[in-house]
């Protein structure tokens, strides 16, 4: 039976609570933490986006975070991000914990300053499952050790990486070894460098059978487990070069026949060092890098990054720019979902849908190319506006696209939704309940299919999304089929938003008037000395963003995309953090897949809609 994904009036969308008070001391979470842990607080500041940032003693991080999660008045059940910020010069490394409360609609950041002489923190993996991979990444990039972490090893860099911790300021951009040495080392790897200790033990290289980690599903009975252990299960690699892993993802599977006993994902095969490289680029030079992370829906990243920098700058973009950004966001959401539809269908055997969805994507590529010159790598935004105004005829082409898109979606749905094979392969596969989904940090259609009505466009509206009339599909069962239905319906809702935006597109200038941020027109630059100086400074140095930090998020096609920016008032970011939703989503894969068949691994992996550029960054 197909699941209904119509908006359920009994399930209210999660929205941010209104914050009338101006003084941070009156914020309920700050008050509660001050009452309980007054000696643990070092400072309370305000993020550029408006919510409070709590600086606490690093030794007390676990207590405070546990209180924030468990106290009914706080209820911060969703950990969006853990990352580090290194300012260099021997200054302590800051570790950010970005929190969101689904219950109260409240946002908060907790920051611990950890001295370089004692780079340790207590792990919070017992509080949120998301923390598992996020702490591993912070360890990999900064060298912060999390005591109590079940498996603290490198995640993005190779297991035996010897050059150091890349995101530290004393780590050179090109690495510590020469290029030929790096090539020589990468080609002389042994088994220990490629497999984790647990995998070596499972294959019989180390000790005998090791007890499985607590993250495996609890419903597997103990006696069957022992039977399987006697049957010498097989350990195989799925990926990194594989047609169905949607990129260079490597899964080490321990198989009992066709059933997966243990799944250990290895990522980092596409780790491009975006965050490090962006520290050496001017604010506008970062925009082309944002295309290459989620290359399936690039404008969402462009727009998110520009929005984050504009938040720090404190500028308000023009109304025309805002509406155009909404149009591009929704077109890119359709672009990303169409690729997901095509590749998921082809993974499960439906080749025709792949051809239909790619044909539809070509139309959006034409729109991209007409506007920016690039099909995939668009780099459409600049801080304070866009790269150019819309070309003549673009709006008509866009209108034509949104008129024809629903018929393609209907055709794909006719092929799949009531198809017995499709239903058999997707229903009741990879079920994720709502509490687990929030604890594993899932966002986007994955979270909504599990029944949690959280969409950043509705919860913390940006770009004027509260003025558009659209529904957010929420699923019931949390299986692969629900994720499929949610994404299909989301595409239809995106068409709806684009139609409204096209109807209300105002005239006016696309970029803001401030010539300290946006290049002035040549005529003015040649005319007035003031404007010429602004032009000169912008070209030679780039814009200067006032000192500050922010963590800004939007609803990207894969989930909640977070952009963390730290500026010291200069022309280049001090830290550029990209919280790709797929990184957190794929961390839930072992939980979803252990106990299922190999064919279901493909279906679940496809349904999570991951893009490796965003996972590995």
């Amino acid at each position, binding site marked *: 039976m197909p699941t209904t994904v119509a908006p359920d009036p009994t399930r209210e969308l999660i929205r941010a609570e209104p914050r009338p008070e101006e003084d941070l001391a009156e914020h309920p979470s700050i008050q509660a933490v001050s009452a309980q842990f007054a000696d643990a607080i070092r400072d309370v500041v305000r993020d550029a986006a408006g919510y409070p940032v709590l600086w606490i003693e690093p030794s007390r991080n676990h207590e405070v975070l546990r209180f924030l999660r468990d106290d009914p008045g706080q209820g911060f059940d969703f950990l969006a991000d853990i990352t580090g910020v290194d300012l260099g010069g021997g200054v302590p490394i800051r570790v950010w914990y970005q929190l969101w409360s689904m219950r109260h609609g409240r946002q908060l950041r907790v920051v611990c300053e950890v001295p370089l002489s004692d780079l340790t923190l207590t792990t919070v993996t017992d509080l949120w499952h998301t923390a598992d991979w996020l702490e591993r990444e912070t360890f990999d990039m900064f060298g912060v050790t999390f005591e109590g972490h079940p498996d603290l090893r490198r995640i993005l860099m190779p297991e035996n990486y010897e050059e150091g911790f890349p995101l530290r300021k004393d780590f050179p951009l090109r690495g510590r070894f020469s290029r030929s040495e790096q090539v020589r080392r*990468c080609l002389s790897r042994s088994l220990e460098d490629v497999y984790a200790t647990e995998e070596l033990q499972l294959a019989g290289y180390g000790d005998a059978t090791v007890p499985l980690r607590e993250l495996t599903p609890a419903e597997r009975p103990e006696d069957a487990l022992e039977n399987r252990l006697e049957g010498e299960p097989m350990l195989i690699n799925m990926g990194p070069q*594989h047609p169905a892993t949607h990129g260079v993802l490597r899964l080490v599977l321990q198989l009992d026949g066709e059933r997966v006993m243990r799944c250990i994902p290895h990522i980092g095969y596409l780790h491009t060092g975006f965050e490090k490289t962006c520290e050496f680029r001017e604010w506008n030079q970062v925009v082309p890098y944002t295309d290459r992370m989620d290359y399936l829906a690039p404008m969402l990243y462009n727009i998110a990054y520009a929005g984050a920098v504009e938040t720090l700058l404190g500028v308000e973009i023009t109304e025309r720019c805002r509406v155009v950004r909404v149009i591009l966001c929704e077109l890119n959401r359709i672009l990303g979902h169409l*690729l997901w539809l095509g590749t998921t269908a082809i993974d499960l055997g439906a080749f025709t849908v792949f051809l239909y969805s790619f044909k539809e994507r*070509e139309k959006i590529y034409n729109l991209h190319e007409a506007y920016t010159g690039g099909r995939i790598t668009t780099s459409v935004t600049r801080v304070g506006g866009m790269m150019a105004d819309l070309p003549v005829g673009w709006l008509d082409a866009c209108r034509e696209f949104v008129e024809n898109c629903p018929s393609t979606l209907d055709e794909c749905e006719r092929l799949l939704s009531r198809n017995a094979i499709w239903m058999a392969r997707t229903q009741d596969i990879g079920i994720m309940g709502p509490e687990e989904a929030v604890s594993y940090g899932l966002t986007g259609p994955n979270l909504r299919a599990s029944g949690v009505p959280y969409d950043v466009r509705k919860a913390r509206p940006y770009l004027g999304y509260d003025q558009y009339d659209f529904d957010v599909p929420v699923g019931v069962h949390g299986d692969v089929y629900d994720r499929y239905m949610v994404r299909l319906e989301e595409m239809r809702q995106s068409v709806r938003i684009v139609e409204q935006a096209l109807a209300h597109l105002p005239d006016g200038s696309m970029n803001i008037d401030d010539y300290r941020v946006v290049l002035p027109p040549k005529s003015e630059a040649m005319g007035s000395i003031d404007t010429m100086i602004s032009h000169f400074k912008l070209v030679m140095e780039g814009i200067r963003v006032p000192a500050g930090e922010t963590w800004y998020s939007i609803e990207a096609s894969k989930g909640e995309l977070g952009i963390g920016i730290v500026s*010291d008032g200069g022309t280049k970011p*001090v830290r550029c953090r990209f919280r790709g939703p797929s990184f957190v989503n794929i961390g839930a894969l072992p939980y979803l897949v252990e106990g299922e068949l190999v064919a279901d691994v493909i279906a679940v992996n496809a349904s999570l809609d991951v893009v490796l550029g965003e996972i590995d960054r």
Partner: protein
Amino acid sequence: MKKLDVVPTDSSVDTGIPRSWVTTRLDYVINWARRNSLWPMPFGTACCAIEMMAAAASKYDIGRFGMERMSFTPRQADLMIVAGRVTYKLAPVMRRIWDQMPQPKWCVSMGACASSGGMFDNYTIVQGIDTIVPVDVYVPGCPPRPEGLMYGLLMIQEKIKGESLAHPVARAEDPEAVGRPNLPAEAIELVAQPFGNSTQQNRVSGLSATSAVARERDRIERLMEHRE
């Protein structure tokens, strides 16, 4: 830049078959068959892989050239298309797959990142896959359009036209060279050195290179010059 002082590896092998009109006719037939039924192995990693998929889809359709049957196992592949950036973590995988492909085999480096490291001159990206595997055709672009990739594939077909049974250009595969880099260390240093914009990317923020930046509250107010 110093001229590359490396002797190109002589990759042709003398099979001892004398060239005559029979063998040239045979060459023609064999090359025709080989180039029109290439089975590519798509080693796609990032954005270029999406353009490769678009080239395989219905609008650009490399099936016209016989290449619609993508082989994901190296055993049945003739052509490895490396589409996208390759990290040092992924490099041994790429080299192993190249080694496991049977002769005859060719390699296309698709995109700027595969050809030279692209816009990523940093600690993790291989600065050109030709340091690791021998490359026949480089397709520039970031990403190249599907037509660009097809032009590169047609160049491979031209290259195959020039092969002969007597002197196959098929890689003279030395069992000792398996798993080793394609270029010697000096050549790697030469091709991977910074050039163009990469030479400008050593400065961090203009205000503070690596100096400490305090929190907002106790930071010196840095007002922008013209702000009121």
